């Protein structure tokens, strides 16, 4: 019988393998990744590894030391060029092809970059290599670092740069940081946190382009006519799901791979992690979640789905959870609020920089965010897993 083929050897892909083995499947499993080495764990790349407080080798994925036990045929440096979902055949960059009995799509996402020629000193951050290259540039002692985009990665990089003693300008086109995932009130707290730590925060201003000095970046031109002088620029303007290789495959693609509520994208093809958009029955919404724990949980669900008969398939309900470390503050959030949801501070206060805020839409709680309040967030998450009703959350946190 043909092997199960997992495309992507990061969190979602390896978690799928773990679930496949955990379900007792002892057939061949091939795991392919375009990267030359097993992908590192990513969260430390904007935090400890960038700061130099963690050895790069320590930033390994949770399953990295269980590969042998998982008994996989791991092929690194092996990019999949295309898939034929009807025949379940994959064509690889090296010109060979592989037949599969099932395919797990776990190809994650790639950072967006700015248009224009590539310049020295301009960085994106996704891989260990990216993190080490940025760190080398930071250690060369730039006068100022410009961070474009105040999403989670941009905000964490800004914090790490400040901790390294560098001057930082954080540029965000929206009116507050993180508005893609958080109501404005919380975004404003994050902006203030960075200002308190000496970051020059510029909100509501777009980037016109980079200013070059020969091959090297010299600054960032802003839409309001001003500019920021910086010899190191970090671009954190979001990621694009890695689905180009699925063009013409028969696998539906939109905002990532389009899956049903069981993580199935086409017969014999499942998807998980940053690349996968699925119908989350718990929220009654389609979503694509770019978070560490989610990649593990959805990877496991997708692995089990691949082995299940259609009649036994179960949906994958989820209350996503993530953390972000900025300075000595730990942000954690459970759920999936929209920027327009009401924000209610139920514990602590913004001034103390220690609080719990719950997001409300009608009689629903769409999420709970804590700053240095891990216990509250975890407990709220357990409640939200039972139901999204607002009243029990208010009661829990009151």
């Amino acid at each position, binding site marked *: 019988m043909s092997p199960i083929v997992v495309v992507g050897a990061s969190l979602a892909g390896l978690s799928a393998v773990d679930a496949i083995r955990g379900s007792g499947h002892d057939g061949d499993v091939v795991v392919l990744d375009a990267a030359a080495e097993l992908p590192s764990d990513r*969260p430390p790349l904007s935090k400890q590894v960038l700061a130099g407080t963690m050895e790069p080798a320590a930033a390994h994925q*949770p399953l990295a030391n269980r590969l042998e036990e998982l008994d996989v045929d791991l092929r690194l440096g092996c990019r999949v060029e295309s898939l034929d979902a009807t025949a379940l055949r994959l064509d690889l960059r090296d010109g060979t092809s592989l037949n599969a009995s099932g395919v797990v799509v776990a190809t994650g996402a790639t950072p967006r970059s700015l248009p224009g020629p590539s310049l020295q000193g301009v960085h994106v951050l996704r891989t260990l290599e990216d993190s080490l290259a940025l760190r080398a540039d930071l250690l060369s002692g730039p006068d100022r670092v410009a961070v474009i985009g105040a999403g989670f990665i941009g905000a964490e990089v800004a914090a790490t740069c400040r901790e390294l003693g560098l001057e930082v300008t954080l540029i965000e086109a929206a009116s507050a940081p993180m508005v893609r995932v958080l109501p404005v009130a919380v975004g404003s707290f994050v902006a203030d946190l960075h200002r308190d730590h000496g970051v020059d925060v510029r909100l509501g201003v777009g980037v016109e382009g980079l200013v070059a000095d020969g091959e090297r970046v010299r600054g960032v031109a802003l839409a309001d006519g001003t500019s920021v002088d910086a010899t190191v620029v970090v671009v954190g303007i979001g990621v694009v799901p890695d689905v180009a290789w699925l063009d013409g495959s028969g696998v539906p693609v939109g905002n990532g791979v389009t899956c049903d509520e069981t993580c199935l994208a086409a017969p014999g093809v499942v998807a998980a992690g940053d690349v996968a958009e699925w119908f989350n029955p718990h929220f009654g919404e389609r979503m694509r979640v770019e978070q*560490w*724990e989610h990649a*593990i949980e959805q990877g496991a669900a997708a692995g089990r789905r691949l082995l299940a008969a259609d009649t036994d398939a179960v949906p994958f309900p989820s209350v996503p*959870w993530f*953390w972000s*470390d900025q300075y000595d503050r*730990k942000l*954690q959030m459970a759920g999936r609020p929209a920027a327009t949801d009401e924000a209610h501070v139920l514990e602590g206060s913004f001034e103390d920089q220690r609080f719990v805020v719950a997001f409300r839409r009608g009689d629903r709680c769409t999420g709970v965010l804590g700053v*240095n309040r*891990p*216990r509250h*967030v*975890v407990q709220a*998450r*357990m409640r939200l897993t039972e139901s999204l009703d607002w009243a029990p959350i208010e009661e829990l946190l009151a």
Partner: protein
Amino acid sequence: MKVVVNFDLCESNAVCMGIAPEVFEVRDDDFLYVLQEEPAEELRGKVEEAARRCPKQAIAIED
């Protein structure tokens, strides 16, 4: 079964507490407390799950 947490690695994000509140508790001082260092065998599944899910891989189980 003995639960050992490497507190140099632990970031107090309370994932373990979400999975096995009988064994792990993050208190208001932001520190993790291990409530039972030698939990009963019936908690093994949960403790193993917590060890697997800990983002810092800070939990070890010594049989």
